[in-house]
Structure formats: C-alpha cells, structure tokens
C-alpha cells in the first residue's frame, strides 16, 4: 500500500474516533445541564477540557457558582468544543479532517464508507451552536451514531487489506489515548473534591459500560471497581486494555515495516502497554503512574508506527 495513503487512512480513523468520543462526552455533559448541580457541571467541563488537553476559551470562567452563569458558560464551552473552526479537535474540525482524509483516500476505502461519512459531513457542515442548542443532546447522539454507523459500514464492506489494518490501528491508538487521558483527568479531579464518587458513573456511561458494570459488580458505585473495569477488562470494547490489544493485533497483522528500528519499537511499545495492564495493573499502588506510562507508550507508538511504515529512510528500504 502507498505509504501516504496508509497515513491518510490512519489519520482518518484517528480524527473520526476523536469526533465520536468527544460527541459522547458532550452528549452526556449537556444532559447534565438539565438537572445536575453546578458543581457536577463544572466538574464535567473541566474533565472534558483536561481530556482534550485544551484550555477553555479566554474570558470564560468556571468560577461563578450560580446556575445562570453555568448555563451561559456551557453554551460557549460547548460551542468551543463542537463548532470552533480554529480548534483542531472540535467535533466539527475532527469530522472535517476525517472526511478530508477520506476524500483524498477514497480509493482505499469502500464507496459505502465514503457515502456514509460524506452524508454526516453534509449534515453538520453549515451548523452552528445556536442551531442545535434547543436539543443539543440529540445532535451529539446523532453525530456519535453516524460515526458508529461508519465503523459498522467499514466492518461490513471494507476489504481486509493493509488499509483496513491502518484504519483500525489509528482508531485503536486514538481511543487508547483518549480513554487514558480521560481516566487521568477523572482521577486527578476527583481527588480535589469531597464527593469521592463524583463523575464515576458518567465515566461508565461515556464508555457504554454502565450495564456491564452492573452485571459484574452490582449497583454499588465504587471508584476503584469502575477504574478497574475501564482499564483492564478485555471484554469491554472501550477499555484501555481492549484498545491496546486491538492496536497490537493490527500491528501484528501488518508484517514488518521498512523502517526496521521503528518497527521493532512499535511492536515493543504495543506489547509493553498491554503487559503493563495485564501484569502490573492488578498490583499497582499508584494507578495514575501506571496509566501515565501506558499513555506515553501509546503516544510513542504513534511515532513508531509512522516511522516504521511511512517516514522510513529510503536507503533502508528493500526494492521490489
């Protein structure tokens, strides 16, 4: 497969995974605006911004502890995270970038995937925050659903070649990074509040894990159990372990890249992240330290993958 095409498909998947994840976070967050306390609302916004490694727009404060301020701020914050063109990680920008990569790599994906994604793009292309603000949760749910559809259509129609592997690799790496990032934000923020359980239920809902938690642990919400499920349960599709294992699987299916050193590093990093969760996590005394190591591995994995398959030195490459 052409190296630049692989890169395009990889980034397409990363951007769309980002848009889907952020849509889910915002879908839950705007639901909170209806009936949750100001503290919870502020907690939610801080967690999202931490997860996305972004500062809120200048001038917006989290401080006013009154409902009307919370609601006014929420509109601005949701706009910043959803439609702000200058924010490369906003839902709009991430879908635009994902769709642009897909447009350039249309010959590498199925026609059905393209049509599905393009339809989603045409729907949101001209929208602004005021257009969705009467029922914002409907907008976010629909956007998330469109990205789920895209993934499903890909699953049903895409040829299982190298492009498929790179797409899945991009999605897995993005989801691993976002999940770890959100968990780190949750751990840190919950330490700063007296309500120790604050935010943990929504962590489960973000990862579609509420039902799974109930089945495994019952109805009592215990932060360490939630954390354990979201990090180390291989049966939960959005758990850190599941995403890291998915990355390792796709990497294994690709065969060796021409960038030999980077290729070895990529396989080592994927294996290390998986091993950290499988073997070190159960006995970890400081979960955030271990999660930070997983986070570093996932970020280095991205560089190693590109070094192995895309940005390799030509002198090292075999001629075919």
């Amino acid at each position: 497969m052409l190296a630049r095409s692989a890169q395009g498909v990889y980034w397409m998947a990363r951007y769309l995974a980002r848009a889907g994840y952020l849509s889910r976070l915002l879908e839950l967050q705007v639901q909170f605006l209806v009936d949750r306390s100001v503290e919870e609302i502020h907690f939610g916004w801080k967690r999202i911004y931490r997860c996305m490694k972004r500062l809120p727009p200048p001038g917006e404060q989290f401080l006013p502890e009154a409902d009307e301020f919370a609601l006014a701020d929420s509109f601005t914050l949701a706009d910043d995270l959803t439609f702000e063109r200058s924010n490369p990680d906003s839902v709009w920008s991430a879908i635009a970038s994902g769709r642009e990569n897909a447009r350039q790599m249309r010959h590498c994906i199925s026609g059905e995937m393209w049509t599905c994604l393009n339809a989603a793009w045409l729907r949101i292309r001209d929208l602004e925050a005021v257009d969705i603000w009467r029922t914002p949760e409907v907008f976010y749910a629909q956007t998330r659903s469109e990205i789920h559809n895209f993934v499903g259509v890909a699953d049903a129609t895409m040829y299982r070649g190298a492009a498929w592997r790179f797409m899945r690799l991009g999605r897995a790496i993005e989801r691993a990074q976002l999940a770890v990032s959100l968990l780190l934000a949750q751990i840190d923020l919950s330490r700063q509040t007296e309500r120790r359980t604050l935010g943990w239920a929504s962590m489960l809902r973000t990862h579609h894990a509420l039902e799974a938690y109930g089945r495994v642990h019952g109805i009592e919400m215990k932060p360490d159990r939630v954390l354990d499920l979201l990090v180390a349960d291989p049966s939960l599709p959005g758990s850190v372990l599941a995403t890291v294992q998915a990355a390792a699987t796709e990497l294994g299916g690709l065969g060796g890249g021409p960038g030999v050193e980077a290729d070895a590093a990529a396989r080592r990093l994927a294996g290390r992240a998986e091993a950290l969760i499988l073997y070190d996590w159960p006995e970890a005394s400081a979960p955030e330290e271990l999660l930070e190591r997983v986070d570093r591995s996932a970020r280095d994995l991205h560089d190693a993958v590109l070094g192995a398959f895309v940005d390799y030195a030509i002198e090292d490459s075999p001629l075919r």
Partner: protein
Amino acid sequence: MDFSLYDFDPAIYDEMFVGEGEPRDHCRAVVEALRELPDDDLNTIQERVTRSFSQEGITFTVYGDEEAEERIIPIDCVPRLLALAEWRELEAGLVQRIRTLNLFLADVYGDCRVVRDGVIPADVILGCPQYRLAMRGVNVPNDVWVTICGTDIVRTHEGFMVLEDNLRVPSGVSYMIANRKAVKAGLRRLYRRSRVQDVEQYGSLLRQTLCELSPGGRPDPCLALLTPGTYNSAFYEHMFLAHEIGAELVEGQDLLVNDGFVYMRTTSGLRRVDVIYRRVDDDFLDPLVFREDSLLGVPGLMNAFKRGNVALANAPGTGVADDKSVYAYVPDMVRYYLGEEPLLQNVDTRLCRRPEDLEYTLDNLERLVVKRVGESGGYGMLVGPHSTPEERDEYAKTLRADPADFISQPTLALSRSPCLIDGHAEPRHVDLRPFVLTGNETRIVPGAFCRVALRRGSLVVNSSQGGGGKDLWVVDL
C-alpha cells in the same frame, strides 16, 4: 415535460427536433416519454441527480482568497441523444484523427518529414511552447504518444466538427460515468427502453490500454496515476480513475527514481512502477528537465522514461499537436500521413501570424471568436457577437501586439439540445467530448462528456464559465 414553449430555431441544428414539435427519428420515443412525464416528476429527478452528486462528493474545488469551496457541476437530467449510426460515423473520424496525430508526433520528434515536405511551416512547430526539445529522438512504447485523448466535438447543420484535440491531460471522463449513473437511476424505464450503449467499461478499457504500454511487456504491470494533488480542480476524477483502473493514486513526493527505474514508497518498501497515467502537465513532470521549481514532479522521471523503464501516458510533448495553430493543419496532416480525406472537419481557422489572416480578423472582430493559442478553458477568448465595441477595441490592441499568439474562427451556431430550465424545456448549446484510448489498438466507449452552456444564449460550455453537463445517450433505435 412541457415542450409547447420550446424555442425551436431552424437556423440552429437541434439535437432532438428536426422541425417545430417534430422529433428526430431516433429521439421520437424519448420525446414522447418525456412529454408524458409530469413536470413534478422531472423536477424531482433533477433534484435527485444534483443531490446524488453532492452526496457522493462528485465535486471540483475552487480556491478563493481564504477558503476552498467544493462545487458541483450542474447536471441537466434530460439526456442528449445520438443515433448509433451517427456515433459510428463520429467514431471512424476520431480513429482516423488519432492515428494521424500519433504519426505526426512521431514525425515532429523524429525526422520532421512534415516540415521538410512543406506541409507545415517549421516556425509553427518550433515556435510552439509545447514543443519539447527533450523529446527529440525519443522512442515511445508502441509508437503511442497519445494514449488518452478527449476531443471536443461540436455540430452544426454542416455536420460534426472538431473544435479542439485535447492531447495532454484531458479531463471530464469521470463525469461521463457519473452523469450516466445518476441519470440512469432517475429515468430507469426510459433508459431501458431506449437501448442505450453502455459506458461503464471505460475503466477496464483504460486499464487494458495502459497495461499494453508496460515496458518490455512486463506482465501484470504496476500502474500509478500521478496527480498534482488534492488542490487540483480535477482531483475527484484522478481519485475516481485510480480506483477504476486499480492504480495507486500518487503524488510526485511518493515517487523516486533509482538507477533509472521509478519506485513508489509503499508501507512495505519501494515498489517499481511500470506505467504512469500522469495528470500533471509536462512543465511540472521532472524538475531536472522541465521547470526546475516544480514540486509536483519527480526528479529523474524523464531519464527513466527515455531509457524505456517506465511508460508515461500521455507521453511528454503531445501538446504540440493540440496547439491551436497546429490544429489548423490537421486536415492536411490526414492527407499527408494517411493519404485519406479527413472524415471529421475542422472549424475554419485563421492564424493571425499570417498578415492576411490578421487583417481579416481585425476587420471582422464582431463576427468571430478569437482565441489565444496558449489558453484553454474558455479563458482569454473574445466571442465577437457577444462583445461590446469597447471590449473589441481593447482586444484588438492585444491582438496587434502579438498576432502569433491568436487564432480566429467564425462564431459557430453550436447545436442545441433541450434542457430542463425552471421546470420546462428550453434549448441550450452543447458540445461533446468523447474519450479515445490508444494502446495496441484504438478503443472508444460509445459515450462522451456532453457539456452544455446553461446560460441562455451563451456559447461557452466550460465549467469554469457557467457551463454544465448532460448525459449523452447513444441509442440503437
């Protein structure tokens, strides 16, 4: 569809009607069916056709000062019809013409007999900016210089005429296929009844043609389509064709030349490329030979090509044969190389480099179309009858300053075909661009990108100038 207000003009050839309300024989069934179709249905079909282009992202990109805008070529859902017999006649003319042009190119980059025998003046060829000295003495695979040609054909009461031979990187074929898909879906029963010739095999014919150029006959050659990139207005077509022919869609940065062979960067290392369908102009192909500031090309590509290690379609230097001045000599070329009379006529063309032609052009500006030799896409052109005296005066000044850069032609009454305008039928001027493929043999799918000047009275069909598209049905009725 309401034809009652259709403005039939006997002075202009109408593709569908031979007289007021009187369809041509091969159009009769389609006109009857269209007449019975309620306006609302046709409007719905028109909307669906437009929407399908938007949903499938069949767009071209226009770059403004700040942001890019993806636009759709407006497509009229009423097909233009051509009888199979008419098509056969046109096809024979196209085959004859492309044979001639390939012989001409081999000659002008070889012995130049055509000049020595006095058929074409040397300065017309050597003065052409598209004449590439780098191609002198180069052997191209199978003597095929022009693998893909998109010839612009117009029709008047006098018959078909060639308006332009596009021999460099002709575009539009993706619209031929996309228009067909969209219009066929809208007019299903009519399409089935009309026994329309298929165009969907274009991709496989193109692949077969390109494979025949494989250096040394290497089996199962690796094909690549070289695009200037996503910013090119025809990028959709590049992507579409790469997919159709099973080629990698590459940019210059993806290719490199090593030891006289071309390779592309893949995820498993460097892979040799055998045939490149290039959609990059000559100027930008290889910075070591052509424009040295080109970032779109591949250093060393021409060396690999000259050594016969990679085939380029079309070969560099073909632009000399579709130069607007050289065009005037194509009928003479047919007689010279083939000893035959041309089956397809040229538009009567005056070369302003000749003093008598310049004088004639200046005296008749209000009746002529004047074009710059080096321009395309409808730019730099004066359409005399649609110009103001001030515009003509201004144009005459530039013409006098550099006469060799201009040609003039009579303003043709291009044929018209009914279009759905504001819910009813109105005639609009049309041309057509069939695509001619040449490998071991010449292949033409029975269809074309039919361009239409959607503005009332306009003769300019270029999409950059308000033109649109139509499906062309070659019908066996």
